[in-house]
């Protein structure tokens, strides 16, 4: 049997039944990575020896009968999570030599649950991008191909390496982070499930910060159930993160079988954008039909400030980023380029260390926070952000969850949408509002485009109601019966 084409849930049973060992499973993944990663570039750093050592420990736990549902499960870890003793780059040259002496809370919890770290997954530099082309370590290739074409497509971003790794069977699941769609959009582009939980559900401690008020960790996997298992281990209050929520973590898996009977599902009028592809509209309609057939009540709703989402996001996120990235100055860690004096060293270090998109966002962020512009940009954006939050709160008085497409298109080609950053930014139009409001949102693979590429639907829920999001997502997953696989994958 192939050890690579399993679900996390199925693997756990097989490991428990001793059909194969964690070491065998890990070795198979290591070999698959060695074979395919040079092409896909899904991992920046691979950790085969560490993975095998962790697998041996996992086998010992399985034998001792102390294993949990994630013991022995090999994962890709987005290279934005600090991992003790394993280089962490955030896909930036400025962190090329950086080996953290500490472990992020999310990955520590995953390690304690017995998962295995196969390596550090590629991403857009500092998670800034929707295509993985801004990585300082080269772009990631989407394992999916258009019908009859060998053109290289992007996996989406910023968690593009995580997405490509899981889709190409180079990991059973992955961690991602989502600031404006960075889990959901690449999940949609690669035929995976991925959830951005409620802001505050997962600790941000040890995750390289992009935009602190938006960043959230979340899982990406091949099924909704696998995401539920992973999120359970990743979640929880952390005294090291003041913005993490002091709430009990529910049994997400238990919500999967709830069904949608009696649930009210909102369809926001504002997400029917001009110029949206017919395929996307059709998929959305299909999703509506699936839920209705399973007993949900479909409700037309309005999220009137949706059209300002991208503008608000591209003020708030760069503003926070411009400040968060000030620490990469060459003084204490990471790369340094010596200069004539302190200022010269800063300038040379940052000029060499940061890529073009990161520099662009630092400049935008610095500008919108500047004296004389703050009120017009940052403060105004915060006000509109509150209106967007109010839109969701109002909507959730009438509905239990909201259904939208995840992205306005399927995966595009490497090199496309490169001429104008704003075209690229439009990719996040459906995902950004949930990020701004801090509500949980999940993408599930729901069908294929005419060209044979996966398309995703997005389920948005109330604050800290991931359970309903999982229930609706599982219902859609069952109805969609998505079984397609990418053409480039390990066997």
């Amino acid at each position, binding site marked *: 049997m192939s050890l690579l084409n399993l679900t996390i849930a199925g693997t756990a049973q097989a490991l428990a039944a001793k059909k194969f060992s964690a070491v065998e499973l890990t070795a198979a993944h290591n070999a698959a990575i060695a074979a395919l990663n040079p092409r896909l570039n899904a991992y920046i750093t691979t950790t085969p020896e560490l993975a095998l050592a962790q697998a041996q420990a996992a086998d010992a736990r399985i034998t001792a009968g102390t294993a949990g549902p994630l013991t022995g499960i090999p994962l890709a870890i987005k290279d934005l*999570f*600090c991992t003790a003793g394993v280089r*962490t780059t*955030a896909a930036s040259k400025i*962190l090329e030599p*950086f080996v*953290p*002496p*500490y472990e*992020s809370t999310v990955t520590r919890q995953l390690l304690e649950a017995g998962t295995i770290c196969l390596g550090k997954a590629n991403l857009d530099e500092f998670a800034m991008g929707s295509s993985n082309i801004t990585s300082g370590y080269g772009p990631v290739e989407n394992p999916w191909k258009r019908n009859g074409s060998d053109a290289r497509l992007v996996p989406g971003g910023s968690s593009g390496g995580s997405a490509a790794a899981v889709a190409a069977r180079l990991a059973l699941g992955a961690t991602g982070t989502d600031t404006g769609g960075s889990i959901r959009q690449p999940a949609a582009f690669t035929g995976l499930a991925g959830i951005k939980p409620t802001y505050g559900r997962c600790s*941000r*401690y*040890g*995750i*390289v*910060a992009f*935009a*602190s*008020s938006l960043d959230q960790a979340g899982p990406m996997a091949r099924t909704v159930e696998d995401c539920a298992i992973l999120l359970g281990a990743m979640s929880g209050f952390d*005294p*090291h*993160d*003041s*913005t993490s929520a002091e709430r009990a973590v529910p049994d997400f898996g238990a919500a999967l079988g709830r069904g949608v009977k009696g649930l009210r599902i909102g369809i926001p009028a504002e997400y029917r954008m001009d110029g949206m592809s017919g395929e996307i509209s059709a998929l959305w309609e299909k999703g509506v039909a699936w839920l209705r057939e399973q007993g949900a009540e479909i409700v037309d709703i309005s999220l009137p400030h949706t059209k300002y989402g991208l503008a608000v996001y591209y003020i708030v996120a760069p*503003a*926070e980023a*411009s*400040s968060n*990235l*000030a*620490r990469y*100055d060459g*003084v*204490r*860690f990471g790369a340094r380029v010596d200069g004539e004096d*302190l*200022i010269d060293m*800063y300038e040379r270090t940052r000029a060499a260390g940061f890529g073009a998109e990161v520099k662009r966002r630092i400049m935008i962020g*610095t500008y919108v*926070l*500047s*004296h004389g512009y*703050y009120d017009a940009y*940052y403060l105004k954006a915060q006000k509109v952000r509150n209106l967007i939050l109010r839109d969701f709160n109002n909507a959730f008085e009438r509905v239990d969850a909201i259904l939208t497409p995840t992205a306005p298109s399927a995966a595009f080609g490497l090199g496309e949408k490169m001429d104008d950053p704003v075209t690229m930014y439009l990719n996040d139009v459906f995902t950004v509002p949930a990020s701004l409001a801090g509500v949980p949102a999940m993408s599930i693979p729901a069908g294929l485009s005419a060209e044979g590429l996966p398309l995703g639907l997005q389920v948005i829920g109330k604050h800290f109601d991931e359970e309903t999001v999982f229930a609706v997502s599982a219902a859609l997953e069952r109805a969609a019966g998505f079984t397609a696989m990418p053409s480039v994958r390990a066997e």
Partner: protein
Amino acid sequence: MAYSLEGKTGTWEVVCGLEIHAQVISESKLFSGASATYGGAPNAHVSFVDAGFPGMLPVINRECVAQAVRTGLGLKARINLVSRFDRKNYFYADLPNGYQISQFDHPIVGTGDVEIELQDGTIKHIGITRLHLEQDAGKSIHDQHASKSVIDLNRAGVALMEIVSEPDIRSPEEAGAYLRKIRQILRYLGTCDGNMEEGSMRADVNVSVRKAGEDFRTRCEIKNVNSVRFVMHAVEAEALRQIEVWESGGEVRQETRLYDSARGETRSMRSKEDAHDYRYFPEPDLLPLVLEEEFVAGLKAKLPELPDEKRRRFCDEYAIPFYDAGVLVAEQATADFYESVAKGRDTRLAANWISGDFFAAMNRTGRSIENPPVSGAALGELLDLISDKTINGRIAKDVFEEMVETGAMPGAIVEAKGLRQVTDTSAIDAAVAQVLAANPDKVAEYKSGKDKLFGFFVGQVMKAMQGKGNPALVNEAVKAQLG
């Protein structure tokens, strides 16, 4: 008489406000668990949070918040139950994150009021605008290496309180009195040690000048002045400089200046145009700081008695003059020492002894109230010996010096040296008779009207009795025998 400066064009008034940075006394830093103690090897007290490592997040230290609230209460200020932290962005090698976490427009403490006393006894009120919490930066040291600067982050992240006054200060004296008063209150509260030499307290001084009846003119800010004396000098030096600028037809430019204590002058550091654009925005890593009313009430209930209240109580309870009470409450420890000595004794006598011989001995021996030249118990025993007339005041001074020198208890010294006061009237009478007999000429002069000689006879008698005669009885006997 209000302070003013005379210029060529007339009389100028000085307008001054202070921003005092006070390091909070706490075990650990404002947003990390690293030790906040002074000293230690360079970079010994630095966590990954303090060093601004990737993914590190600040977590507010509850004790630092409590210290800020205590200070606010001590400044009779409004406590803001909801406040917020902001980032103040600028690049410097000893600022690890590239921003300082501070409080910009929603500080933890709002307006308050501080009472100062001037030399002439005038009481004046200085308004407090606000107090906010912020983190300190590290230290850059440029003279350790020919071409490199070295950085010590021990202080990076230590909690500071910035206390901003209204521009209510009108003279160097008021500036000094205000700074001392703030320091005194913070020390009483135990929220800052007020040690300006070690840098745990420093002031930014805002100064402008104006003619009587005018609105405020442009001010300059003198950064990081680190002693009361320097603050007073800086106010005057800067005021004189500004008067000269205005009177020579120029215009004072808003700028940041430094005080050069060696030259006694201020000089320009950077102009308003070169000022940093700090790009303040709300710190997204921290939620707004929300205080429970009970939390504030609990701190208020446990607040120590503050110097103004203590001073008034000393006046009432111990019947000592307002001035003396002010001296005794200057330091909490001195006030405690006084109370331990004065309780159940002659309170005025205790006040006189402590502010007189005791302070003199403390200064002379280089000791402190925490490590006094004589213990409170020993001083109390000495006062008891005076009050029960075992010794007289003059002998007491000798005994006291002996106590300072040897550490012996006063009773033991009196016994060992036979210093007991003589109250035996026959012995006194005999001594008086002896002195009068030895000085017939002086007796004659006295009798012819030279009253002043009375003191001479008393002195001679005391001398003959080695100072041990009871002064009242000696007086009485001299008077009687001279007729």
